[in-house]
């Protein structure tokens, strides 16, 4: 499968995606997300602060997952420059910014990835990497990544859609499950996910189809039991995420005629408690070109922060802390049920 962009799909346009969400919501009589927040007394939504700097270092990836909200893949060429990474490091050094969360694509494919991690490590901040696992088996260039991550105490967060092969391969591509298990074993070998090692390996579960993730703790128990017993693999925590109705998951919803039911489900499951803890309130998202967004999803929908500060080179924490977060219908994805964030359930 190629990316939406490479296929010339209309859905490669963020305007088209937002138009579809607006039209479907209108047709079904669903309230706007802003209206829902007003009812809950949470509008306008404002940050609690910039604690986490989430940096998307590029859309290049060795996988093309069916649900990728980034529309990443081997045919994407957008890559963050070393200069922009340097600007991210300046922002990261700001007091109060505690964490660097590196994402992609496959972030490890950015030629300056290791330099970026080494420099961030010198600042003494917590570093997280969104690793797709199979990159650890993608050749000589990547095979020492587990040791590299361990050296810099990087927290590894990896997607594994299910603890069985069929659903995982259905979402992420044929053979991905087996390679992911092999990669998890490599991470376990250097201590990741092993009790007492201090090296954290968390897995991310997102549903393979048009349904919401159930209880995170039950799922975590199932994943732990199955992965340990059947594959001898260990990890720390499971983060259960909701699929956002955007990009390639939106394509899947439209193809299977599930878009109406899925949006209705998200709106019906709106949880005001989750809405108070959405990740955009303590996270700032940086695009590959240095543009700023409230979250990774707003980034993929080109909903840029157009305040006094709109680029990472202009980073100003106090200005950003007082901004108003941009909202659209996809935001229901973060507030449905137990809520969803890059760190899993929030309510």
């Amino acid at each position, binding site marked *: 499968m190629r990316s939406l962009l490479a296929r010339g799909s209309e859905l490669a346009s963020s305007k088209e995606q937002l138009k579809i969400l607006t039209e479907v919501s209108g047709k079904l009589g669903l309230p706007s997300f802003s209206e829902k927040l007003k009812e809950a007394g949470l509008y306008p939504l404002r940050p609690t602060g910039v604690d986490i700097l989430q940096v998307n270092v590029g859309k290049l990836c060795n996988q093309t997952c069916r649900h990728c909200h980034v529309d990443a893949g081997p045919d994407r060429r957008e890559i963050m420059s070393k200069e922009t990474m340097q600007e991210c490091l300046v922002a990261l050094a700001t007091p109060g910014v505690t964490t660097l969360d590196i994402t992609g694509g496959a972030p490890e494919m950015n030629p300056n990835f290791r330099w970026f991690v080494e420099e961030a490590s010198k600042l003494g901040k917590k570093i997280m990497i969104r690793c797709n696992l199979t990159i650890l088996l993608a050749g000589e260039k990547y095979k020492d990544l587990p040791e590299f991550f361990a050296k810099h105490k990087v927290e590894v967060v990896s997607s594994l859609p299910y603890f*069985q092969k*069929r659903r995982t391969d259905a979402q992420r591509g044929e053979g991905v499950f087996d390679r992911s298990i092999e990669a998890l074993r490599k991470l376990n070998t250097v201590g990741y996910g092993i009790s007492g090692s201090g090296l954290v390996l968390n897995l991310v579960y997102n*549903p393979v189809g048009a*349904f*919401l993730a*159930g209880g995170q703790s*039950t*799922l975590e128990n199932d994943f732990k039991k199955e992965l340990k017993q059947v594959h001898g693999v260990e990890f720390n925590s499971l983060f259960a995420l909701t699929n956002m109705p955007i990009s390639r998951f939106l394509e899947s919803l439209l193809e299977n005629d599930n878009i109406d039911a899925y949006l209705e489900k998200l709106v019906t499951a709106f949880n005001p408690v989750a809405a108070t803890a959405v990740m955009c309130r303590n996270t700032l998202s940086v695009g590959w070109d240095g543009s700023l967004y409230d979250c990774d999803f707003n980034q993929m929908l080109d909903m840029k922060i157009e305040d006094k500060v709109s680029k990472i080179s202009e980073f100003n924490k106090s200005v950003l802390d007082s901004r108003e977060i941009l909202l659209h219908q996809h935001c229901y994805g973060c507030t449905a049920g137990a809520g969803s964030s890059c760190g899993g359930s929030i309510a």
Partner: protein
Amino acid sequence: MAQETTYYKPEDLKKFGNIGEFEPDLAKKFFDYYGAVFADGALSAKEKSLIALAVAHVVQCPYCIDAYTTDTVEKGVTEEQIWEAIHVGAAIRGGATLVHSVQALNKVKELGI
């Protein structure tokens, strides 16, 4: 194309909560009971969902099959577990038919055949 007519409409499932329109007190009692039944207890909510799925097949309730297939999948149940649960329902239903054949057997003997 002729208009499709059926008593079962998928969109009716989400109107289940409206059954209290004319008898709200009894409906509330039912939904409170229903919620309590499916909460985590000595059996987990996941186990209860699988039981519900098996029963849904036995009583042939399309709404319940729709709801509890989704619910079990959301709770992380595997395909193998889903189909084993359905086979448990089928075995009980089939067994319930066959066990009544003892009555036929008794009658045959009573008739001196």
